[in-house]
C-alpha cells in the first residue's frame, strides 16, 4: 500500500463536470502516461477498464449526469504503482451490499458488473464517504 514516501513521478488533479467524455479524456492522459513508461498491455487494459467503470459510476450513477454536479479526479503514478481517486457528489451507496452479478439469477442482468470488474482488475480498491469516494490502485506487474 503506497505511503507518503511513495515516489510519485507524475500526477494529475482535476475537477470536472459530470460528463463522461470529459472524464475519459483525463483517463486517456493517464493511459498515455502509462504507455510512455512502458507499462505492459495487460496492466494498461486493467487500469483502463477499472477507471472507466469508476468514472461511469461517479458521473452516471452517482451524479446522475447532472451538469450542476462535479467530479474530482486525481491520479498519481510511481515506477511501480498507479493510484486513482474519484469523488462524486451523489447520494452514495453501500459497496458491500451489491448483489453478486455472477449468481445464476443475475447472470443475464445487463448491468451491475462495474464494481466487480474494478475489484478484479485492480490490486486494491477502497470506498469512502458512503461510496462517493473511490480509491483504485494497480501495482505494476
Amino acid at each position, binding site marked *: 500500500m503506497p505511503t507518503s514516501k511513495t515516489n510519485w513521478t507524475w500526477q494529475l488533479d482535476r475537477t470536472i463536470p459530470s460528463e*463522461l*467524455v470529459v472524464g*475519459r479524456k483525463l483517463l486517456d492522459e493517464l493511459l498515455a502516461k502509462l504507455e510512455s513508461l512502458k507499462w505492459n*498491455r*495487460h496492466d494498461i*487494459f486493467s487500469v*483502463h*477498464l477499472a477507471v*472507466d*467503470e469508476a468514472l*461511469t459510476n461517479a458521473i452516471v450513477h452517482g451524479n446522475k449526469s447532472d451538469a450542476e454536479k462535479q467530479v474530482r479526479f486525481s491520479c498519481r503514478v510511481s515506477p511501480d504503482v498507479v493510484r486513482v481517486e474519484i469523488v462524486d457528489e451523489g447520494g452514495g451507496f453501500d459497496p458491500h451490499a451489491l448483489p453478486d*452479478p*455472477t449468481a445464476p439469477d443475475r*447472470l*443475464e*442482468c*445487463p*448491468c451491475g*458488473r*462495474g464494481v*466487480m*470488474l474494478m475489484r*478484479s*482488475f485492480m490490486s486494491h480498491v477502497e470506498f469512502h464517504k458512503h461510496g462517493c469516494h473511490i480509491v483504485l490502485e494497480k501495482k505494476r506487474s
Partner: protein
Amino acid sequence: MTTEYRRLDIKPVGDVTVVRFRDHKIIEDINIQELGQELFQLVETDGCDRLLLDFSAVDFLSSAALGKLITLDKKMKAHGGTLKLANIRPEIYEVFAITRLNRLFDIRQDEADALAAF
C-alpha cells in the same frame, strides 16, 4: 438485406451471418446504443437466426457493451436463434471469464471453429 450498418461489417457465410465490429473500442455510450440497435435489427428485422460475432478488431469494451450482448443473446433465444462469439483477445476473454459470462455465451477460438459448431 439492404439496411446500412455503421458499426458492423456483415458477411453471410452459408446460413450464418458473420458480424465483425468496426470499432476498436466499444466504450462510448452513443456507439454502444447504435451497436445494440444494429445487432437487434439483424435479429428482429432481418431475421438472422445464426449469428457469429467476430471480435478480432476489438481491443477494449466496457461493461455497458456486455449488457448489450446479454440483451442480444436474450433476443436470439426468444427467436429460436443461435449466437456464437469468436476471435476474442485474451484481456477481453478475461472479462467474460471473471463475470462468468463465458458460461452464458458460446465463445470459440476463431471464425472457422465457430462456424463448424453451428
